[in-house]
Every structure is written in structure tokens, then in C-alpha cells.
């Protein structure tokens, strides 16, 4: 219908969502999904740096084989709090609650999410959960590992398990409500003409993510609640001395926490699809299959949790079933990886910061995913389970994958969100610093793991030192690489070049129809949209030659 084929005119809007109200009330009581997205962004950044600080302390301790910097008790609390903050308070909500919150309605042509008040409530619940956890941290910390394995967590630990468990329980509901909100929005708030197979891939990935949030998180709530009850009321649930079964906890925990790793990667894959498509000026290769592969990952993701329990005392037959199903997740993942690569073919590829992050994502996710297949291989996992090999596997996906995708997405959407550009040159340099620092940190850990260094070790045998020093060196570079973007992004809010148009000549309703920055209710009237997703085929040479920095 009346869709726009060329970039929207550079409308200078001063009446955008940022200027729609001032004062703390206009932020803390807002029901505007865009403002809520920014509230999340701020809180998540805080949690990330707290988690990052813990990581730095971990790496410092591991410089030397002796446990000389911290007491072992402190070290145990450090990695626990690192894991808890990074997973539950940063990576799980990362892209969905920030970029997802901000752009989902814009990509759907809706004025808001289906339940705006619920959206705000989710953020408050998230903060409440954070408050409990911060309380647990300040009052002495938790030392159970982020996995809360029983009976250690339920009976033996004498740290602040109750507060931390409560924090995670509460935060879980924030996640669930976000998922419910997204599902209802995607089903019922699409603009006229926007059929399922015209949805941007980011929306598909958020939909798959939301399904996992809704169907998986409650089981985490159950498992954590049971630990909480056992500790708070002293009744026996997982305590073997009272007839309990500690392995049951692991089933319940991983029923959520494996699917949760796809909460932590699918949105990143969505962002990468947007970015790769935009910067190679092409629709993603095999759009439909890529869209459906997100759902396939979400579904398969629920069938494999026992691969964390191969040597836990789980039956070997169950182990074999779980291993086989884990292998199958390689297929939808392969579809995505190869589709991104194939999209580059005969494209018009440019290398702005978001694209650098996206390309980095593809490489590092592939390594992380392949090593995921390694550890899903039964005979191999017996040896590397609970060693640094696992640590390296998941940091490759979570830091090399998701954090990179998050940074890429943030740079990609920054001009749209704030109407300001970040400094491109320094940003590119930083993305390379992150890539180098990252590999230096985590590649050595694969070797450490195979050599047999167990995880959660505060002191270790001397022969592991060289690799640990390398890893710590890498982590320092990585830390710098993460710190600088925060500084220049903040700087750009005030001093960045103005960007009132379609910063990247990108396709999609959020770029072509919404103002920059978007107005309070997104669209003055509900648009009709009949374009295919990521449809870059209609580019004309003139629009193409506009250097993407021009604003």
C-alpha cells in the first residue's frame, strides 16, 4: 500500500518521546515502552559493571596459583555473584527489555506494547529482585554458585542464600511478564498488512524468546522457591538425610536454565540478522527458514537440559537421550550461521561498528556453539565437565556472542533512540579491542579445561599458571574495551552529531515510518505495511550512494 520506498524525509522532530515530559515522574511512572526500555538500559548497565567488577577480581585472584588475594570463601562469593548478576540481571533481560522493549512496537506499527502498565510493573519487579540480590551481596554475599545446587545451597551453605533466592525468584516474574507482554503484542498488535512472514527477524527472535520466558521461567521459580522454603522453614525437600533427592533440584533447575541460554542468544541472533541485512544491503538469505529456525531452537531447547547432568548420577539412558537431542540443536543454528554468511554473497558490505560486532558475533558464536557440540558429546563431557572448558564454552557464546550482539545492536539503534551519533572511529577501534581481548581471555581456558583445571577453584596447581596469566591479561584488555563504549556513548548524548533521519538507510517500519527519535505514541496514525521484511531490493543507486554517515 502506501509504503515508503525511499528513506523517510529527515523530519526534525523536537516533540519526541524524550521531550514529551520532564521530571522524575515522567520517567518513573511512564508507561511509554521506549522510556521503559531506557530505564532498563540504565539498570542493566549498572548490573553489568557490577558483574564485570567481580570478573576482574576473579581474574586477579587467578593470576597466581596460590589463593593469595582473597580467602577461598570470598572467591566463592565472587564467582557466585558474578554469575548471578551476569545471568539473571544482565544477560537474560539484556536485549529483550532494552532494544526489544524499545523497538518491538515500532517494528510492529503499534503505539505501545499490549500491556504498558504491566511493562512498567516488570521493571519495578526487576528492580525489587535486584534489591534483594544486592542486599544479599552487601550483607556478605552468597557462595552457592549461580546454579544453587542442593543440598549445599539448601542445607550446608551459611551465606545469604535466602535473600539471593528471593531476588532471583522475583526477577523471574519480571521476565515472565515481559514474555507475556511480547507474546500478546506480537499476536495482536501488528499493523494491518504486517503478516507473520513480513515480520523482521528481530521480532521472530523475540517471539521465540518470549515463549521460553513464559514456559521455562516458572520452573526456575519453582526450583528456587523450594530451596527458599527448605532454608527459610527448615523443612526437608532436597536433603538426602530426610529422604530428599538432590538430583531432582538439578532437573528442575536445568529445565529452565538450559532453555534460558537460548533466551540469552536468540535476541542476539535477531539483532545480528537486522545488522547483517542492513550493512550488506540484502534480505537475509532464506528469510523464512531463518525465522522458523528461531522457533525450532526454542522448542528443541526444552528437550536437552539433562546434558548438564551427564555425570551427576542421572541414568545413562537419560544421558544418551539428552545428548542426541542436544546434537540436533546444531541444525537450526547451522541454518542461521550459514544464512548470515550467504547474505554477504553479492551484497554491498560496509563495515560500520554494528557490522563489525555482528561479524565478530558470527565467528565467536560458531566457536562457542561448536564447543557446545563438543560438550554435548557424552564421552568428551565426562572429562571436561566442570572444568574451564565449560567456562570457555559459555563465555564464547555469552560474551563473544550475546554481549557483542548487544553492543552491536546498541550502536545500530543508538541514532534512532537518541537522535545522536556515536563517534564512529573510536567505536570501530573499540570493537577490535573487544574482539582481541575476548579471544585472549577465553581461548586459553579451553586448554586449561582439557588439561583438567576444575572451575570454581580459588587456588590451582602451578602448571596451569601460564595459561591463567594469559587469560587475565586478556580480561584487562576486554575490560577496557567494554568501558570505553560506555563513556563515548554517554558523551554522544550531548555532543554526538545529530541524526534525524534514517541513519543507516535501513529498512523496516521503525526506520522508515517512525520519526527520529520517535514521538511519544510512535505513529500519528496506525500505518499499513505491506513490504517484505528486510526488503533492500528496492534500493536505487541514488539512495545507495548516500554515505551512511550523512544525516
Amino acid at each position, binding site marked *: 500500500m502506501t509504503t515508503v520506498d525511499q528513506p523517510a524525509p529527515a523530519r526534525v522532530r523536537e516533540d519526541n518521546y524524550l521531550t514529551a515530559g520532564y521530571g522524575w515522574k515522567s520517567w518513573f511512572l511512564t508507561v511509554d515502552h521506549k522510556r521503559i526500555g531506557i530505564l532498563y538500559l540504565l539498570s542493566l548497565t549498572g548490573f553489568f559493571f557490577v558483574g564485570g567488577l567481580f570478573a576482574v577480581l576473579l581474574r586477579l585472584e587467578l593470576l597466581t596459583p596460590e589463593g593469595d588475594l582473597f580467602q577461598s570463601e570470598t572467591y566463592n562469593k565472587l564467582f557466585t555473584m558474578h554469575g548471578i548478576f551476569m545471568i539473571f540481571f544482565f544477560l537474560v533481560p539484556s536485549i529483550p527489555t532494552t532494544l526489544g522493549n524499545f523497538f518491538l512496537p515500532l517494528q510492529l506499527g503499534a503505539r505501545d506494547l499490549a500491556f504498558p502498565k504491566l511493562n512498567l510493573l516488570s521493571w519495578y519487579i526487576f528492580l525489587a529482585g535486584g534489591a534483594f540480590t544486592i542486599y544479599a551481596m552487601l550483607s556478605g554475599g552468597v557462595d552457592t554458585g549461580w546454579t544453587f545446587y542442593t543440598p549445599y545451597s539448601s542445607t550446608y551453605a551459611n551465606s545469604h542464600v535466602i535473600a539471593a533466592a528471593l531476588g532471583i525468584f522475583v526477577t523471574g516474574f519480571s521476565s515472565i511478564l515481559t514474555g507475556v507482554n511480547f507474546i500478546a503484542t506480537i499476536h495482536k498488535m501488528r499493523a494491518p498488512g504486517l503478516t507473520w512472514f513480513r515480520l523482521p527477524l528481530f521480532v521472530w527472535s523475540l517471539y521465540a524468546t518470549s515463549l521460553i520466558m513464559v*514456559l*521455562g521461567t*516458572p*520452573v526456575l521459580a*519453582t526450583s528456587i522457591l523450594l530451596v527458599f522454603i527448605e532454608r527459610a522453614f527448615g523443612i526437608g525437600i532436597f536433603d538426602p538425610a530426610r529422604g530428599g533427592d538432590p538430583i531432582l533440584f538439578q532437573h528442575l533447575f536445568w529445565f529452565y536454565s538450559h532453555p534460558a541460554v537460548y533466551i540469552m542468544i536468540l535476541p542476539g541472533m535477531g539483532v545480528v540478522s537486522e545488522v547483517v541485512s542492513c550493512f550488506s544491503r540484502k534480505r537475509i538469505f532464506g528469510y523464512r527458514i531463518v525465522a522458523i529456525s528461531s522457533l525450532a531452537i526454542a522448542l528443541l531447547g526444552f528437550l536437552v537440559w539433562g546434558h548438564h547432568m551427564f555425570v551427576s548420577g542421572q541414568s545413562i539412558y537419560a544421558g544418551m537421550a539428552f545428548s542426541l537431542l542436544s546434537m540436533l540443536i546444531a541444525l537450526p543454528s547451522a541454518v542461521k550461521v550459514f544464512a548470515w554468511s550467504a547474505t554477504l554473497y553479492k551484497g554491498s558490505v560496509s563495515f560500520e561498528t554494528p557490522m563489525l560486532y555482528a561479524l565478530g558475533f558470527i565467528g565467536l558464536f560458531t566457536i562457542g556453539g561448536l564447543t557446545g557440540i563438543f560438550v554435548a558429546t557424552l564421552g568428551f563431557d565426562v572429562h571436561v565437565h566442570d572444568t574451564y572448558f565449560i567456562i570457555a564454552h559459555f563465555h564464547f557464546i555469552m560474551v563473544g556472542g550475546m554481549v557483542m550482539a548487544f553492543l552491536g545492536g546498541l550502536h545500530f539503534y543508538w541514532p534512532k533512540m537518541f537522535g545522536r551519533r556515536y563517534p564512529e572511529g573510536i567505536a570501530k577501534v573499540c570493537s577490535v579491542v573487544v574482539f582481541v581481548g575476548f579471544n585472549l581471555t577465553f581461548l586459553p581456558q579451553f586448554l586449561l579445561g582439557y588439561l583438567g583445571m576444575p572451575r570454581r577453584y580459588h587456588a590451582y596447581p602451578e602448571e596451569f599458571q601460564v595459561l591463567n596469566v594469559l587469560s587475565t591479561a586478556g580480561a584487562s584488555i576486554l575490560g577496557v574495551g567494554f568501558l570505553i563504549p560506555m563513556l563515548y556513548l554517554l558523551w554522544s548524548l550531548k555532543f554526538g552529531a545529530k541524526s534525524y533521519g534514517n541513519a543507516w538507510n535501513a529498512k523496516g517500519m521503525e526506520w522508515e515510518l517512525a520519526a527520529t527519535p520517535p514521538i511519544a*505514541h510512535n505513529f500519528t496514525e496506525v500505518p499499513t505495511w505491506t513490504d517484505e521484511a528486510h526488503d533492500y531490493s528496492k534500493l536505487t543507486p541514488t539512495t545507495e550512494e548516500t554515505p551512511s554517515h550523512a544525516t
Partner: protein
Amino acid sequence: MQPETAAQHDPTLAHHFESHRQQHEASLVGMWAFLAQEVMFFGGMFLAYTVYRHLHPEAFVVGSLTLDPVYGTINTAVLIVSSLTMALAVRSAQLGRGKQAALWIGGTALAAGIFLVIKGVEYSHKYHDGLIPNFAWHPSETSAPSLEIFYSFYFVLTGTHALHMIVGVALMAVVAIRALRGRYGPSNYIGVEVLGLYWHFVDLVWIFLFPLFYLLGRHLG
């Protein structure tokens, strides 16, 4: 009902929806997604129940014999009544009869209250019998050793269920007031419908809790 132009000013239609139908369907989808969540939440606990029953069959049989089936059966009936009244409340709202809907909701809340009182009486009996794990645990000699596990689950599951009921009653107050104010009508009764869905779900949980706790060892007792 509402003419299209009036939709903009209609207080029962949130600003970001295009039509009551959209609002209705979005809320319905949202609620069902939420209920799927609830299924999994209780599902985890039912799984724990199943596993422990598999590991300690005797304790569960003995345990069920120490529960009073009279309370259980009465409470089941009470909940079924409350489900009926709730269904009728939704029906009244569908027909635009606000006062009637509020009345039915009140009836439902009353039934919920009765249920909770009976549950409370039951809990206090357990207290006197020394069957509350950790707090008052001194079961009679002959009981099975893992009885404590059974009771842990009895209290966790019925407790969580009761909490859901209390939340439900609180929601009923809100919806009843809105119903009295005439907020609901044939094209706009989703608020009552959603409350109803929640309440019926609470009933569903009990439908399974009842045989699993009260009845499973009856034939031996």
C-alpha cells in the same frame, strides 16, 4: 456497540488499542500465556511430588491416611461452587448486567473465604497432631520415616494454592467494584473474563491436589 468515532474517548478502551476487539483478544492471549506459565509453575511442584512418591511410596500412602477426606471433599465442593458462581459472573458481565456480575463475584469470594477457613482449620489440626515439618513435628510412632517429605509437599502445594486464592480474592474486589460502576458490557467484559480464567485455573489445581493428597491411600485405611 460503540460507534467508531467514540472509540477515541471511550474510557474502557486503552489508548494504544485500535478497537475493543483488539483489546479483548490481546488480553485473552496474554492471559492464556500467563496461565501456561502457571501450569509450568505448579507443574514443577507436581513433578517433585511425583518423584518423591516414586521414591517413598509408603510415606505417601501413610501420609494420605493422616489427612481428613471430609475436609478435602467439602472443600472440593466449595471450590466447584465458586467456579460456578465465577462462570455466572462472567455471563452476567457478558450480558451487561454489572450489579449481577458484582453479586456473583461476591458469592465467589465468599466461597473462597469458606475454603480458606476450612483449610485453616485443617492446618490447625495438623498443628495439634504434630504434623507440621520442622515447626511442630512429632508424628505418632507407627508413621513412615519419610512422612516429613509428604507433609512438606502437602504444605508447599496447598500453601501455594491458598496463596493463589488470596490473590484471586484481592483481584475480585477490584473487578467487582468496576462491575458496579458499569465498566463491563457485551463488547467489553474482558476484565471479568480474565479474572474468571484465573479463578478456574485455581480450581483446576485443586482438582488434582485433592485425589493426589487425600485419596491416594484411602483404600488401605
